[in-house]
């Protein structure tokens, strides 16, 4: 287990290093053909649908009706224009508000907590970690009902702050787990030096620890952002017209405009764009965060 925990940090540093670490000389013809086939299946099954959606979103409605979309059809922004004229800005802004604010709160709470679980751990740190993990076993549907009824009784429904609180709770355990796995890699000498210089805890966290684990903070932030942005169940039940988020708006849009494929594809692309951009722009950080979070 020690090996499992320590290695990825080193292995990540160079992609050439990874190649050597893989089982060498597995280039048997059969195994190469096997993995070639897998590569194609993965490609066709998992990339093509997204590309089709993208292509269709740029077609006129008549051309979009052909399935699979024709590559030769002329491209147009018609679908996007019609989508944006249907009032998607409030829900998009709501999603942005809920995702960004909850992510910031999560990081502010999770960072000190992860510190208390790793660098100077409380005695029962493993129990605390297990408590955090166990919260993931509660089905969201079970939590939804009491929260809904409670919010209803205090007239807190359709309020973006309710979603912010829910998303903060939902993402806090993951963030603590991830940040902890980054924090236990921080060299102790660094903290000792800060202490000798007389830095208090807040200052140590801010100016010594935070810069070192920036990749971890970024990865945790990205994952929290993506989870909040994509959340549907709570958003659908807890919001109405005012606090509606983008996925809820999208489901409504698809229900009412489902026959207009180009428009629907354009809507799906727009709603997915922020997370796709976030995921694509920071893939190495995401890979690091995802793998560290679970491998340890």
């Amino acid at each position, binding site marked *: *287990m020690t090996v499992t925990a320590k290695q990825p940090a080193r292995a990540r540093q160079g992609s050439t290093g990874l190649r050597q670490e*893989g089982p060498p000389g597995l280039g048997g013809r059969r*195994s190469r053909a096997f993995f070639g086939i897998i590569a194609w299946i993965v490609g066709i099954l998992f990339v093509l649908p997204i590309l089709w959606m993208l292509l269709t979103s740029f077609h006129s409605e008549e051309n979009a009706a052909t399935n699979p979309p024709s590559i030769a059809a002329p491209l147009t922004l018609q679908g996007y224009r019609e989508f944006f004229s249907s009032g998607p800005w409030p829900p998009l802004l709501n999603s942005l508000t809920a995702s960004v604010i909850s992510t910031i709160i999560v990081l502010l709470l999770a960072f000190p*907590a992860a510190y208390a679980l790793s660098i*100077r751990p*409380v005695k029962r740190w493993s129990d605390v970690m297990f408590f955090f993990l166990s919260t*993931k076993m509660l*089905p969201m549907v079970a939590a939804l009902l009491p929260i809904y009824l409670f919010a209803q009784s205090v007239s807190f429904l359709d309020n973006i702050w309710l979603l912010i609180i829910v998303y903060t709770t939902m993402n806090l355990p993951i963030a603590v787990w991830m940040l902890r796995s980054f924090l236990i890699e921080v060299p102790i000498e660094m903290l*000792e030096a800060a202490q000798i210089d007389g830095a208090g805890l807040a200052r140590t966290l801010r100016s010594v620890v935070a810069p070192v684990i920036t990749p971890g903070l970024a990865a945790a932030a990205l994952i929290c952002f993506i989870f909040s942005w994509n959340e549907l169940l709570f958003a659908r039940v807890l919001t109405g017209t005012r606090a509606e988020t983008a996925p809820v708006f999208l489901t409504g849009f698809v229900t009412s405009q489902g026959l207009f494929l180009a428009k629907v594809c354009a809507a799906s692309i727009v709603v997915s764009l922020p997370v796709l951009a976030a995921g694509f722009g920071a893939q190495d950080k995401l890979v690091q965060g995802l793998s560290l979070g679970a491998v340890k």
Partner: protein
Amino acid sequence: MAGTTVSGGSRATLEPPEPRDPSLHSRPRPLRVRLRPWLLLAAPLVVIGALLIYPIVRVAYLSFHRYGLKEVISGHPVFTGLDNYREVLGGSYLWKTVLPNTVVFAAFAVVGTIVLGTLVALLLQRVGPAVRAAIIASALLAWALPAVTGTYVWVWIFDPDSGVVRKMLQGVGLLGPEGFNWFTERLSFYAIATLNVIHHGYPFIAITIFAGLTTVPAELHEAAKIDGANAWQRFWQITVPMMRPVFAVVTILSTIWDFKVFAQVYLMPGGSGSNPDVFNLGVWSYVESINRNQYGLGASIAVLLTLVLLVITVVYLRALFREDEIS
């Protein structure tokens, strides 16, 4: 355990003024210092406790009551004992439809996700940096794509009238001109849902397993190869045993996720209420409570789902973490 070693060491070494003196542990530290970590933990524990413990208690309470529109208005749930549970457990609907929909689907989705994730991870290990970056990018695209959007793409692909699958099958003569509605049949409905969930879930698994694979020493493979083991044997006799903790973690996480699947079923045609044949536990609870305002009944279904998950997780943890392997 890596965590224990590192953290244990850090506590000892961080004690001023004689950081490396182990006897420091026996000297009681000032209360303020000992409490400080708990203060740091307090906010998350309180937030999570309030928003998760309260619902658990409340949902369990409601599951023993009748709580419909009338009771919501009056504000007083009517205690009905085990009536809700009798209704849920009594009929054949739970046993013949909902439970199989939940359990069999989750089993296929978990196995599918892990097999595909492992294959992609092995593939990642074999390709050059450029191809690897491309595969990871496309995998992350599938992962970050909102479940809502992803589900619509799959519904669109299997559209009974104009879906590309219908056209392809008709093109090769496997499907008659009358077509087939994939969404009304339970089996084909869940086949599509499984595809969708695997599509959404495999990137995380693949990346995690890939990270784990890099920790298997190449010398082991070399040695086994000299002994004449082929790739298949080496995978089962070296990679799998070395990676057991990683596989354990991804299996547990996928199981928890796939039992709780909601959006992917709810958003498919019929999944939001019109076709009770395709409900799973989560959707059933949602439909009973939110669509039909039978909060007590919905609560008892939610309790049931929680219990099923709890049992499975405990069995898993027992089987997979035989020696205290989680760190």
